C-alpha cells in the first residue's frame, strides 16, 4: 500500500510543509497534537504531543482512601467507565481476599459487557463518520443511549457511572434494569446487522480502510499493543480468556481475531466482539435465574459501604460507615497487579499498600497511552486522510491517554 517514495528533509526535490494536526482539530477526537511534516499530502514524519489534560490521577490516588479512588477510574476511559470502576474494585478485592457471590459476578459481567458494546458503538460509528458515512453513526448512537439508560437504572448516572462498591454493588438491580437489558438484546442484533450491511461490503469504506495502517503481529507485540488492535493483527490475547477475572471462566465465548491488522480488520473485530458480548450477557442472564435475587454484595461489612438507611438506623452500620469513610479500616500490606480487558486493551492496576489510609502507590496501565505511541511512527508514508482514519480506528480516549 505504502510503496511510495518518502522524501526526507534534505531531498532537493521536495518542499515540505508543517501541519499542526490538533490539539483541537475537528478530525482528532480529543486533545491530541501531532506535528506532521508533509510532502504534498503524504506524511514524511510526525511527532505526537500528549499531556494537555493531565490530571495527576496517580498522585491524587496516593492521598485518597480506596473508595474515593473510584471516581478517578471513571474518568479514564469515559466511554466505558463501568469497566474501569469494576477493574479497580476487583483489584482492591484481590488485595483484601474477598470472594464474590456468583450473582454479583454475573451482574458485573453484564454491566461490563454493556460498557464494551457502548464503547465499540462509538468507535466504529465514528470510524464511519470519518470515512464520510454519518448514517451508521446515527443508527448506532441510539443504542448507546439505550445502554446509558440501563446504567441510569442501576446507579442514577450515565457517563461517569460510579456504579460499583468494594464487595459488590451499591443497590440491587431492579426489574426495569432486566427489562431494558432484554429489550436491548432483542433489538440490537438487527441494528448491528444493518450497520454491517452498510459498511462491510461498501466499496468506498473498503477502499478507505483495507490495507490502511496495517500492522504486523510482531510490531504490535513489540509496541505492547493490546485489545482489539492487537487481536486485529491475529494475536488472540484477551485478558478475559487468558487470565479470567470475575466469573468469565463460567462463560463460553470466542476471541475474534483479524488477519492483516489494518483499519478494516479492527472494525470487523469490534463488530464481532459486540456479538460475543451480547452472547455473554445472555449467558449471565440465564445463570442469574438460579441465584438468590436478593444478593448484590458480598458479606464483608468491614469493607462494604452500608446503605444510607442502615447507617441511620443500625449502630454497626454507622460504625462501619464511619470507619470506611474515614479510611480507618485495616487493609493488608502487599502489592497487587490486576488487569481487566478494557474496551481498548489491557487495563492494569498496580497497587502497593502499606496498610495506611491510602495506597502507597497506584499505577494505572492505560491501554490508550501504550497503544497511541505507535501513531506517529506508523503514520510515516501515509496519506493525511489515511492518518485521520487510522486515529479513529485506534480508539484513543484522551482521558486515559493522559491520566
Amino acid at each position, binding site marked *: 500500500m505504502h510503496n511510495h517514495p518518502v522524501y526526507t528533509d534534505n531531498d532537493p526535490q521536495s518542499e515540505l510543509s508543517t501541519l499542526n494536526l490538533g490539539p483541537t482539530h475537528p478530525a482528532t477526537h480529543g486533545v491530541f497534537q501531532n506535528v506532521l511534516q508533509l510532502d504534498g499530502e503524504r506524511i514524511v514524519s510526525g511527532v505526537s504531543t500528549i499531556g494537555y489534560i493531565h490530571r495527576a490521577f496517580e498522585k491524587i490516588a496516593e*492521598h485518597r482512601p480506596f473508595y474515593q479512588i473510584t471516581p478517578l477510574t471513571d474518568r479514564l476511559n469515559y466511554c466505558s467507565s463501568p469497566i474501569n470502576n469494576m477493574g479497580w474494585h476487583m483489584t482492591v478485592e484481590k488485595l483484601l481476599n474477598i470472594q464474590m457471590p456468583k450473582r454479583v459476578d454475573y451482574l458485573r459481567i453484564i454491566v461490563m459487557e454493556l460498557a464494551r458494546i457502548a464503547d465499540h458503538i462509538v468507535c466504529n460509528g465514528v470510524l464511519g463518520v470519518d470515512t464520510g458515512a454519518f448514517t451508521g453513526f446515527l443508527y448506532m448512537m441510539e443504542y448507546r443511549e439505550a445502554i446509558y439508560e440501563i446504567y441510569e437504572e442501576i446507579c442514577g448516572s450515565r457517563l461517569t457511572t460510579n456504579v460499583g462498591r468494594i464487595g459488590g454493588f451499591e443497590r440491587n438491580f431492579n426489574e426495569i434494569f432486566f427489562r431494558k437489558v432484554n429489550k436491548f438484546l432483542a433489538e440490537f442484533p438487527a441494528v448491528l446487522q444493518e450497520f454491517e450491511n452498510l459498511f462491510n461490503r461498501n466499496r468506498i469504506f473498503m477502499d478507505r480502510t483495507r490495507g490502511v495502517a496495517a500492522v504486523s503481529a510482531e510490531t504490535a*507485540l513489540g509496541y*505492547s499493543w493490546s485489545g482489539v488492535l492487537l487481536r486485529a493483527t491475529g494475536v488472540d490475547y484477551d485478558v478475559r480468556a*487468558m487470565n479470567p477475572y470475575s466469573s468469565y471462566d463460567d462463560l463460553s465465548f470466542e476471541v475474534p481475531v483479524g488477519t492483516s491488522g489494518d483499519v478494516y480488520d479492527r472494525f470487523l473485530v469490534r463488530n464481532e466482539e459486540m456479538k460475543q458480548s451480547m452472547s455473554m450477557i445472555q449467558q449471565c442472564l440465564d445463570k442469574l435465574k438460579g441465584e438468590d435475587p436478593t444478593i448484590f454484595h458480598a458479606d464483608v461489612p468491614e469493607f462494604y459501604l452500608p446503605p444510607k438507611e442502615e447507617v441511620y438506623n443500625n449502630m454497626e452500620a454507622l460504625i462501619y460507615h464511619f470507619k470506611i469513610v474515614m479510611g480507618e479500616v485495616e487493609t493488608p500490606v502487599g502489592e497487587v497487579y490486576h*488487569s481487566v480487558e478494557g474496551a481498548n486493551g489491557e487495563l*492494569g492496576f*498496580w497497587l502497593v499498600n502499606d496498610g495506611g489510609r491510602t495506597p*502507597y502507590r497506584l499505577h494505572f496501565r492505560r491501554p490508550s497511552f501504550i497503544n497511541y505511541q505507535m501513531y506517529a511512527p506508523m503514520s510515516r508514508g501515509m496519506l493525511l486522510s489515511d492518518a485521520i482514519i487510522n486515529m479513529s480506528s485506534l480508539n484513543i480516549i484522551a482521558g486515559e491517554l493522559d491520566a
Partner: protein
Amino acid sequence: MGKITNEELLQQINEKFGEAIKVEGEPYGLLTIEAGRENIIDLLTFLKTSPELQFIYLTDITAIHYPEREKPIGIVYHLHSLVNNVRIRIKVFVADGDVWIPSATVLWDGANWMERETYDFFGVDFKGHPDLRRILNVDDMTVFPMRREYPLEDPNRVDKKDYFFGR
C-alpha cells in the same frame, strides 16, 4: 492454563544469574524478583528470548519511591509470557543522586513512552533512550512530581481563601 510454575521460572533464572537476583516473594501469585541495573538488560533479554520462557510482552514499566530507604527509587517492570501465560515482576532499586538505568527500548519499542513517563514522574534517567523528554507534564517543570517529597497542595492553604478573590 500456565505451563510453567513460579518455581521452574525461578530455577531457570537462578541457573543463569545466580546470586545477582534476589527473590522478593510471590504476592498474589506473581513472582517478584529484584535485580541490579548492571544486569537488568541481560535479564530482560534472557526472559524475552529464552525459547522456553518467552516473556515477549512488556506489560508495563513504572517506578516507586521509598524516601527512607538507602536506595529509594525502584523501577518496576511487569512482563507477561503470552505463550506460557505467566507474569513476572522485576524491580531495580537505585540510590538518590544516581538515578539511572539502561533503557529497555533495545528490546521493545513500546518501552519508549513507558520510560518517558517514568522519567517525567520520578526522574529516572534511562541511558540509551532515543528521546528522553517529559511526556505528560510541561517541559520547563523542574521537579519529578511523583516522588514522595512533593505532596499534593494543602486544600486549607490560606491563599485559597474565598475572601482573597472577593467572594
